[in-house]
């Protein structure tokens, strides 16, 4: 813990953050969409979908320089602490907070480590799926950290952030990014309802995040699958309609699609 010091940005961290944000913009043209709250200096926990190392860079590129200096990504110590180089990148350059996914020693308790960062008045970026999502599912089940943090610090805003396309820009196992346009959609904060159970809350948080996706994957599946195609041809319209993900996942996407006819 003492290694992280007082958590104000060092020169190296400032340079890294400015450089990476510029790079993120050059490659992905990243643009934030604030659907819920405006950006603010309030203390927040940003929680986002995770499929790429670039996710954290993209999300923090959407924050102001001032917010960035006091927002830390939570990263897995068993991955980022593995070698000296990784630890240097994660801590000395990106000022991430490293936690152990499997812990035995109470000093390694991830919740108390994260709480200590919050208690310094800083914000966190967490990926509640717990790992980079490599499946065809849009979002894995959430781990409990989000619930535990919010129970312990109910006054910290929980902001869902949908990171678009980053899994295509820099997939797991790749080191060169492909330039594709990305957006980060920031939703309205959510909070634990009185008496809400852990599992129920985590699933609600997950659904809130899913609903932010401006282009649900069903769009593709539906066009490709002849069954869906027939149905949509009959209507001949581009109006959003309720749709179901095809076979298996059974996830409903009721979010409106932004594809109204355009006058041009």
């Amino acid at each position, binding site marked *: 813990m003492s290694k992280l010091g007082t958590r104000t940005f060092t020169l190296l961290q400032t340079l890294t953050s400015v450089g990476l944000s510029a790079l993120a913009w050059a490659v992905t043209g990243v643009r934030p969409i604030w659907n819920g709250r405006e950006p603010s200096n309030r203390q927040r926990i940003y929680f986002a979908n995770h499929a790429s190392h670039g996710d954290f860079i993209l999300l923090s590129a959407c924050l102001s320089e001032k917010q960035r200096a006091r927002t830390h990504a939570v990263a897995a110590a068993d991955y980022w602490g593995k070698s000296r180089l990784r630890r240097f990148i994660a801590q000395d350059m990106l000022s991430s907070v490293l936690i152990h996914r499997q812990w035995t020693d109470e000093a390694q308790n991830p919740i108390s480590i994260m709480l200590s960062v919050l208690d310094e008045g800083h914000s966190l970026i967490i990926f509640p799926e717990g790992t980079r999502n490599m499946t065809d599912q849009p979002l894995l089940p959430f781990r409990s950290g989000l619930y535990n943090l919010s129970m312990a610090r109910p006054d910290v805003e929980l902001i869902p952030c949908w990171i678009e396309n980053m899994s295509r820009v820099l997939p797991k196992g790749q080191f060169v990014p*492909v330039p594709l*346009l990305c957006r980060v959609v920031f939703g309205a904060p959510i909070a634990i309802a009185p008496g809400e159970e852990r599992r129920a809350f985590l699933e609600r948080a997950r659904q809130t995040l899913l609903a932010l996706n401006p282009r649900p994957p069903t769009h*593709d599946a539906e066009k490709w699958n002849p069954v869906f195609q027939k149905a949509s041809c009959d209507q001949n319209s581009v109006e959003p309609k309720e749709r179901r993900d095809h076979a298996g996942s059974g996830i409903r996407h009721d979010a409106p699609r932004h594809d109204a006819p355009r006058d041009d």
Partner: protein
Amino acid sequence: MVVGLTAVLTTASLVAGILSWRAPKPLSSTLVNLNQRINAWWVMVVAITVAFFFGRAGMTILFALISFAALREFVTLTHSRRSDHWVLFGMFGIIIPFQYWLVWTAWYGLFTIFIPVYCFLLMPAITALHGDTERFLERVSAQQWAVMISVYCVSHVPALLTLDVPGFEGRSLLLIAFLIITVQGSDVLQYIFGKLFGRHLMSPKVSPSKTWEGLVGGLATSSLLGALLSFLTPFSPLQAAGVAFIACLMGFLGGLVASAIKRDQGVKDWGHLIEGHGGMMDRADSLVFAAPIFFHTVRYFWT
């Protein structure tokens, strides 16, 4: 010419300003859109003027960047899988630099066949070697279209600088000016004529705003504009009108095809390059279709 363009744009800004000032608030979407378009043209004119100042190098770099932005929008919209990563990277990292290097060195022979022959055959081969056959034809076709539209077609604009028109040496930058002014002007004129007189929709399923009246009025006036600009070119006024007519007709078709692709992909804009203005392809779709035809018309008849 820069003075002329600035004058036209200033007039346009003034007219739009007066219209916005007199119109009831809040402004109708047409007026907001008009203001946005005029602002986008200002950006365009400044970028092109700067590039003009740096001559052939400036133009080549400018259009390479335009290709980059357009390709990025195209690839973002289309379906791809993880196994396409290296092909996609090659499109940005190899095809764009190489194609514009061919423009820069005026290697016409390879310039015309590099993408339609070599990339056409090698890209699907690489995809096949990755062994992922799911939606193979769809992915491969989308990649082909992406490079053809946003790299191959766009690169024909700076390639105009490599043409040696007898008696027109050293002034080929003006050909680019002629092409851009007539084609972009035609977009505007079609839009204005469509708004004023548009009654009969041309293809309601593809685009809600393209009308026969807009097309006829826009093409007639932009051909006239071409004739007036013949002093910039090696063409006689009549020839200039004809060339402008062909380029603007192609431009119209480009807009139509771009709309159809957007409809198919379920989006209204290509991207978000300039806030509120859509993406690069939203502005360049007409130029994309016009440039190769214009290039080959000039090359065939004037060199």
